[in-house]
């Protein structure tokens, strides 16, 4: 999802292997208590959280790029205002998450530099291009839909500041998915060519959306510790299944076809059977070889470097004003 393949630090310990503090910590987690910044926590818990929240924050920020691409080309003024509001929300979501990560003793600039140096990741999904206006619909519908699936679960995560950021984000995010679906409805009920664009967007973004939840549980090596610490609260496959079950009827309503020959309702499990995405592609994209990785990182670095004079200028101004006030006192 927005945080995929987050490496968990430290090997899983049994209760007997834990020291007294670790046991007390695990007891608090098991009792459903929230951990707050000032509380003692195992170093592995802290490091894993920084990785996960940082990656989540970076995803919000990089996620602005594929959509920002269409702000000036939106088909109507209303759609433009809506898209602008959505992209602005993503900036806010990034900020909530950076602030949550900062309570763990890492600075926002540090995280930004790590992203730019390729030492921190963001979700694989944002390395795919948005080629047509229908892609903006599909991104809202599928990508934000998948994000919500994950974030609703994460409201119950054990770290207080992360959980509170999720509550806030979930409140704002529902509009994102709906505006996307609204674009899809318009396209799917439009001219045959518009409907083809909608189908094409679904064809290209379906599997990348399924990849957002991360590798299959059987290959997810870092999940167990994160689940025990309630940094993660649902497994990748659980969330993926939920997403498919929710999305297929929505595609049917649009009169679009999910690009999966194996998609079939399974009465017994009460959910759909479906094909897994190409995991080789997923690993390639994460490793930096997706269609847009280089573009995204170049855009981020340029924004950061070109904005330096502005950030510095405001600091210089603030310092000057502070000095003037001191002199006046």
């Amino acid at each position, binding site marked *: 999802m927005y945080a995929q393949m987050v490496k968990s630090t430290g090997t899983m310990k049994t209760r007997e292997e834990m020291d007294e503090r670790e046991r007390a910590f695990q007891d608090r987690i098991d009792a459903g208590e929230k951990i707050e910044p000032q509380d003692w926590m195992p170093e592995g818990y802290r490091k894993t959280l920084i990785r996960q929240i940082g990656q989540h924050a970076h995803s919000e920020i990089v996620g602005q790029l594929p959509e920002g691409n269409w702000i000036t080309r939106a088909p109507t003024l209303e759609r433009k205002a809506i898209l602008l509001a959505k992209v602005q929300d993503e900036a806010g979501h990034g900020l909530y998450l950076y602030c949550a990560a*900062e309570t763990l003793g890492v600075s926002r600039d540090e995280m930004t530099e790590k992203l730019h140096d390729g030492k921190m990741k963001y979700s694989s999904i944002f390395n795919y291009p948005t080629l047509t206006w229908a892609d903006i619909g599909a991104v809202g519908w599928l990508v934000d839909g998948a994000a919500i699936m994950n974030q609703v679960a994460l409201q119950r995560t054990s770290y207080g500041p992360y959980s509170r950021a999720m509550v806030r984000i979930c409140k704002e995010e529902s509009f994102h998915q709906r505006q996307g679906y609204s674009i899809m409805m318009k396209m799917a009920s439009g001219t045959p060519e518009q409907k083809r664009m909608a189908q094409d967007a679904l064809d290209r973004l379906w599997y990348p959306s399924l990849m957002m939840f991360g590798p299959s549980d059987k290959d997810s090596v870092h999940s167990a510790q994160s689940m025990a610490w309630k940094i993660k609260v649902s497994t990748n496959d659980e969330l993926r299944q939920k997403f498919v079950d929710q999305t297929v009827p929505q595609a049917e309503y649009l009169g679009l076809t999910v690009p999966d020959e194996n998609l079939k309702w399974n009465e017994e499990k009460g959910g759909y059977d479906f094909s897994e995405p190409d995991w080789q592609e997923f690993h390639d994209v994460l490793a930096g070889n997706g269609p847009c990785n280089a573009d995204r990182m170049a855009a981020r670095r340029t924004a950061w470097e070109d904005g330096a004079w502005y950030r510095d200028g405001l600091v210089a101004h603030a310092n000057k004003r502070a000095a003037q006030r001191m002199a006046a006192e």
Partner: protein
Amino acid sequence: MSSEWPLWEVFIRGQHGLNHRHVGSLHAPDAEMAIRHARDVYTRRNEGVSIWVVPSNQITASVPSEKGPMFDPSKSKIYRHPTFYDIPDEVGHM
């Protein structure tokens, strides 16, 4: 090398007559910009009618490990709650 903007804590009054409530934090070079950023980040959907910002390093917090000695003493003082007292029904609402 740029210097990082300091961190501010943001408090919003949701409606007239309510307390300001802590909603989160943000970075800004000074108080004026902190208010502007807070408006853009925390009140995009009519969440507030007033904003306070405070430099995060100006906040003094109680120590979590002293939670027991700090807050436990009030637990035994149940006579501070109205429900401690039995008032006969005949007396009416009190």
